[in-house]
């Protein structure tokens, strides 16, 4: 089915080009050279979540150039989930202020201090009347945000590029913070908060002086947490650690699982996926426990190395696999780019030249 679709795309594209040529000739009567325009738009043929992975010859990613969403990729999802959890006790704009605004750090710290000291301060005066500081959910939220902002200090660093010390010594999370987070994860009963403390503890470990501790913690706890976005974010941290430890087989296997299950992290996993030797690539394939897991590995392989081969392998595993469409668009666009040829005397000679240039394997 997918192979036929590819052939249909190629024929469609060549007819469009030929038609355009005829129109141009008819309108101007002049010879026009081939200026390298694309006549195939991948967007209608694959889900828009794949669009950064469409074929792009000059940039890392189609449409976005490079990935610069690492600091705000999950903002909408985080806001939505907390809004759902908090209900009416916090308005959306208040939630966004606390969650997404760096200026809230001081106020969160003040409000958290108030919870233990009971001494009022400027922030307490500001927020009294706007939110119920005695509500348990508000208290839990403020406490959580206090720890989360401390972790964020290490994970999202804004520094002056002309300040060498800031670039030389990125802030790490300390053991006091990681211990506090572990305790919260272990003692909190509310499942929503527990899941979030699990994530924050994992993140704090990743940004600590001993990031490999995260691997052990993840292996112990992974079966006790929901397989949601937070899970896949931690899995991508773990994959990164395996990569840094030069266990490329395991790293790439985990990146493929993230790619397969977490749409928001497709760009991250595609960027980081990088087999180094044939042996580690084969080991990654052997780690896959199902055809879909194997297909996810091939889907990334198709982005990184050999799209045609990836399509063949995935089609054998599952002809209806969700990743096939975007891979097919990559083949069409790449073939279009490499088979561009000068428009000569007639449409038929152009089509003949084009057919010779197109790789027979692709057809």
């Amino acid at each position, binding site marked *: 089915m997918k192979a036929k679709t590819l052939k249909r795309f190629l024929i469609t594209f060549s007819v469009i080009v030929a038609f355009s040529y005829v129109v141009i000739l008819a309108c101007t009567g002049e010879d026009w050279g081939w200026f390298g325009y694309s006549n195939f738009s991948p967007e209608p043929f694959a889900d828009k979540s794949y669009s950064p992975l469409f074929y792009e010859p000059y940039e890392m990613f189609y449409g976005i150039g490079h990935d610069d969403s690492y600091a705000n990729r999950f903002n909408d999802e985080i806001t939505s989930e907390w809004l759902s959890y908090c209900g009416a006790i916090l308005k959306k704009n208040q939630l966004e202020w606390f969650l997404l605004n760096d200026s809230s750090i001081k106020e969160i710290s003040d409000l958290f201090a108030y919870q233990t000291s009971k001494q009022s301060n400027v922030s307490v005066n500001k927020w009294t009347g706007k939110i119920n500081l005695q509500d348990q959910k508000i208290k839990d939220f403020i406490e959580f945000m206090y720890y989360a902002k401390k972790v964020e200090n290490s994970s999202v660093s804004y520094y002056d*590029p*002309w300040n060498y010390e800031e*670039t030389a010594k990125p802030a790490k999370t300390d053991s006091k913070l990681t211990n506090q987070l572990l305790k919260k994860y272990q003692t909190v009963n509310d499942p929503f908060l527990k899941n979030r403390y699990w994530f924050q503890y994992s993140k704090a470990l990743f940004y600590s002086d001993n990031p490999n501790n995260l691997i052990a913690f993840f292996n112990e706890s992974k079966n006790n947490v929901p397989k949601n976005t937070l899970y896949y974010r931690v899995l991508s941290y773990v994959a990164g650690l395996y990569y840094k430890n030069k266990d490329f087989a395991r790293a790439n296997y985990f990146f493929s699982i993230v790619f397969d299950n977490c749409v928001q992290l497709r760009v991250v996993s595609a960027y980081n996926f990088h087999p*180094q030797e044939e042996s580690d690539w084969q080991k990654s394939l052997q780690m896959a426990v199902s055809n879909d897991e194997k297909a996810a590995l091939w889907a990334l392989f198709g982005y990184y190395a050999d799209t045609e081969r990836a399509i063949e392998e995935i089609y054998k595993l599952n002809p209806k696999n969700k990743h096939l469409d975007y891979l097919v668009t990559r083949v069409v666009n790449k073939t279009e780019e490499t088979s561009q040829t000068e428009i000569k005397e007639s449409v038929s000679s152009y089509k003949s030249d084009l057919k010779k240039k197109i790789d027979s394997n692709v057809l």
Partner: protein
Amino acid sequence: MKLKLFCIFLISLWLTNCQKEETETKLSFYYWKTRFSVSKFEMEFLKSNQVKKLYVRYFDIDLNDTGFAVPVGPISFEKDYEHFTIVPVVYIKNRVFTSNKTSIKSLSDKTIEFINQINRFHKLQCTELQFDCDWTKESSQKYFQFLEMVKKETNLTISATIRLHQIKYYKTTGVPPVDYGVLMYYNMGKISADSSNSIYQRETADKYIRYLSSYPLRLNVALPIFGWGIHIRHQQVEGLINKMNFNAFIGDTNFILKNQARLIAKRNYIKFGYYFMKGDEIKMERISHNDIIEMSEDLNKNLRKKPGEIIIYDLDSINLNQFKNEGKNFKKILDYF
């Protein structure tokens, strides 16, 4: 009689000035990685060849997403740097000087301060700086202004890299206002699928070398010892394999040695992070000891003055391995000057 004596005096003066300055040419290396750490093998090579000076890339300067000049990839010194005289080198992308967002005064101040920060952090001192920029006619005014400002502010010895086209066309692209230039005698050709060597080809060098004698700035010379592989698919360049370990590919049964400079992939295969399809070729571009001798002889014939220094690009075990046989005799290339 008086006229005869005067003529003899003039001729003697002319002959004296024609002689190349008899200074001893020294050997040094470029270090071009973001983490400074010299291996045992590299240290032994440097020691046996009496290399005491390293030109170390401190950082690049390029435009960020908003179009402002920022340092990129600053170096961190890990160990063994105290054994050498370090000359900071800053590589600046040409577009920094063609951007109307770049204030030259601000750039020179920030660059000097950033170099000082790196030196303070690692307890280093330096008496000279080098700048590397492939400037053009359009960017020359701003780049030269930058160099003048740095010189004035630091009062250090300032040098700049000079490429062959800037030698030949110096009347158009200008001569940088520095204490001396470093001729980059490599990367002469285009990276292509044909049989040429883009790093060094005598026929290409010949088009430029005769202009050396008229270049108005004193020159030292940078010579290459690096190599790379050009990954070719269907006679098109697919990519560049930097720091290619040639022996690892030659010894791999998944590749056939077509000739001394070409390998062919026997099957689809991943190696060193690169994916090769069956039939892909790798053109191995490298520099031999004979190439270095040939370059040295040609340069010696054409340079106006004997270079004070030969700087080798670049210090790396993969590069040095190609000259293992020369070992402590590597420095004998200086005899050709």
